[in-house]
């Protein structure tokens, strides 16, 4: 899963290339891009330089404002360079395997950085970084922020929104179409179906995929599969669907633009983004220090005050008076579950195949 809780429509650049020119010839492109990158300076000198890669769009702008600018102000000898496309994990793999690593610190989704992918990453200095304080953290990745997939609805058309996924799946109570983001990763497709079918919220993992698809069968003809997370919200805003499973951050973005979109804080899924350092990163010591700053209990919530994602560190506290607070997946009533990123990492091939086959039926 790629574009969770993020700013703009991420795949733009890649899709432009692939759409216009045909995918086959471009599969070699990551190596070429990597080869053109800036070699950077060694971490040995006094002046340090870190290349931070994130996912572009509103999220990365907010990260710059929340973390990078204050960090550079406090550490004038450090120069942070930014790049985008951090969830094109193929690029990380290509960099590491070609020995030309141009990224030092990378914001990745929960489906990256466990299991055999650890071989692509530098072990973190857990004396410096609170590696395992938050959900899903390890020696190879530290939680950065948490996003939520929630029930989204039109405030003007559904005055009495569903409170549970069972109600969300009830076509009699809520006629009309529903949108999911078409991706096999941790965005809540299986979990919402299982919750709707009566699986207890603390017994979701390992996922009973057969049962989830049987439940999805019951609303198959009313489902619209959005090509991007942004589209799940846009379909709501356009009136194309009655209900949608959305990322709260993107619902917030459209609600800010005046769309009449609300979210229900119950039975919502929590996923995390993590910071990783690719193996062979040229400025890994400086990257380690920046990672420690961004994920510490005192600084981690700075992002949440300007962008609606929750801190990755459990002791970081967002400001309740910030305008983003209503869309933040923290400090809310209602039940929630965490996406088991290890389960997704181990089963993503099976999940992708099953979803494709189910959609084809």
């Amino acid at each position: 899963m790629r574009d969770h809780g993020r700013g703009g429509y991420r795949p733009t650049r890649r899709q432009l290339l692939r759409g216009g020119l045909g995918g086959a010839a471009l599969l070699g492109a990551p190596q070429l891009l990597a080869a053109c990158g800036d070699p950077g300076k060694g971490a040995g000198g006094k002046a340090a330089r870190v290349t931070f890669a994130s996912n572009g769009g509103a999220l990365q702008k907010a990260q710059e404002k929340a973390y990078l600018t204050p960090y550079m102000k406090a550490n004038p000898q450090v120069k942070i360079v930014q790049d985008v496309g951090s969830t094109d994990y193929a690029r990380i793999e290509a960099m590491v395997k070609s020995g030309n690593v141009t990224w030092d610190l990378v914001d990745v989704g929960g489906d990256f950085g466990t299991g055999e992918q650890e071989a692509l990453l530098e072990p973190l200095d857990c004396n410096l970084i609170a590696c395992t304080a938050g959900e899903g953290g390890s020696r190879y990745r530290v939680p950065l922020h948490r996003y939520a997939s929630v029930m989204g609805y039109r405030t003007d058309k559904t005055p009495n929104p569903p409170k549970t996924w069972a109600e969300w799946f009830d076509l009699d109570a809520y006629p009309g179409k529903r949108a999911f983001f078409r991706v096999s990763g941790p965005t809540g497709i299986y979990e919402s179906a299982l919750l709707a079918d009566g699986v207890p919220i603390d017994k979701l993992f390992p996922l009973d995929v057969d049962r989830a698809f049987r439940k999805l069968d019951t609303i198959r003809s009313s489902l619209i599969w959005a090509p991007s997370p942004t589209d799940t919200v846009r379909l709501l805003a356009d009136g194309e669907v009655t209900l949608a499973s959305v990322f709260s951050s993107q619902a917030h973005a459209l609600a800010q633009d005046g769309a009449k979109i609300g979210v229900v804080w119950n039975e919502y899924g929590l996923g995390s983004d993590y910071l990783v350092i690719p193996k062979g990163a040229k400025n890994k010591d400086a990257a380690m220090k920046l990672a420690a700053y961004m994920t510490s209990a005192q600084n981690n919530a700075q992002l949440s005050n300007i962008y609606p994602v929750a801190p990755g560190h459990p002791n970081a506290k967002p400001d309740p008076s910030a305008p983003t607070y209503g869309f933040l997946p923290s400090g809310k009533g209602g039940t929630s579950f965490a996406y088991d990123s290890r389960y997704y990492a181990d089963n993503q091939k099976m999940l992708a195949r099953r979803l494709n086959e189910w959609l084809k039926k």
Partner: protein
Amino acid sequence: MTVRRIRGWGLLAVPGILFLLVLFGWPLADMAILSLTEPSPANYSVFTESPVYLDAYVTTFIVAVVTTGACLLLGYPYAYVMHMGGRRPALVLGFFVLLPFWSSILVRTFAWSVWLQDSGIVNATLMGAGIIDEPLPLIRNALGTTIGMTHVLLPFMVLSLYAGMRRIDPDLARAALSLGASPLTAFRRVFLPLSMAGVYAGSLIVFVISLGFYLTPAVLGDPGRPLVGQLIVEQVNGQLELGVGSALGVVLLVATLAVIWAGTRLVDLRTVMGYDE
């Protein structure tokens, strides 16, 4: 003859050839190697694991054929008017055919979704006028993909056809008319056969580009019937399976070459390249 005369000038092509070798030939070879070594040739066994993959190739080729046909139907009259209408209409029509190139394919594809979706402009207008009760299924199916792809690819067809038509000696049709042929006969017996080189060239270009489409079918197409390009992206970016993605790419390449080869059994490739004397 002609070929010998230009030999000294052949050096001019060297930068272009090098460019293609380095930026196209090498990645292509790399892709073929990856498909066999990342981790093993077992990458190709995805085709036996799930019917999704083979079906995607069938869908992709059908969509490519239909898109090519749609481009030809729309493009031929357009190019014909450009050719026959004189300088000014040719300029104006040429401008409009090039216009889409200056806006992003992403923007255009999303614009189509605004037109075609159930609550979109087309359906809202038709329902508002009382012509239909239920929205027409214009999006999230093969029709949506074909409309979007035809829009993107039409310029390639029109420009190929127009280039082909410009090579036709206008005196030939005039001669046919002066010998008593009706305008229709002159078109059918003289102009149309001579314009076939452009038809083949345009069709080949549109067909081949169609095979690699990713964005348009993702936004406008049937989620249950992905094209090969979508599955490749899913493998490479979604699952980090560079080997499987490469294998899908190699098979697409081989299948495409096979189709072109079969095409050359029917059509002399030299016609397409404009070497017909």
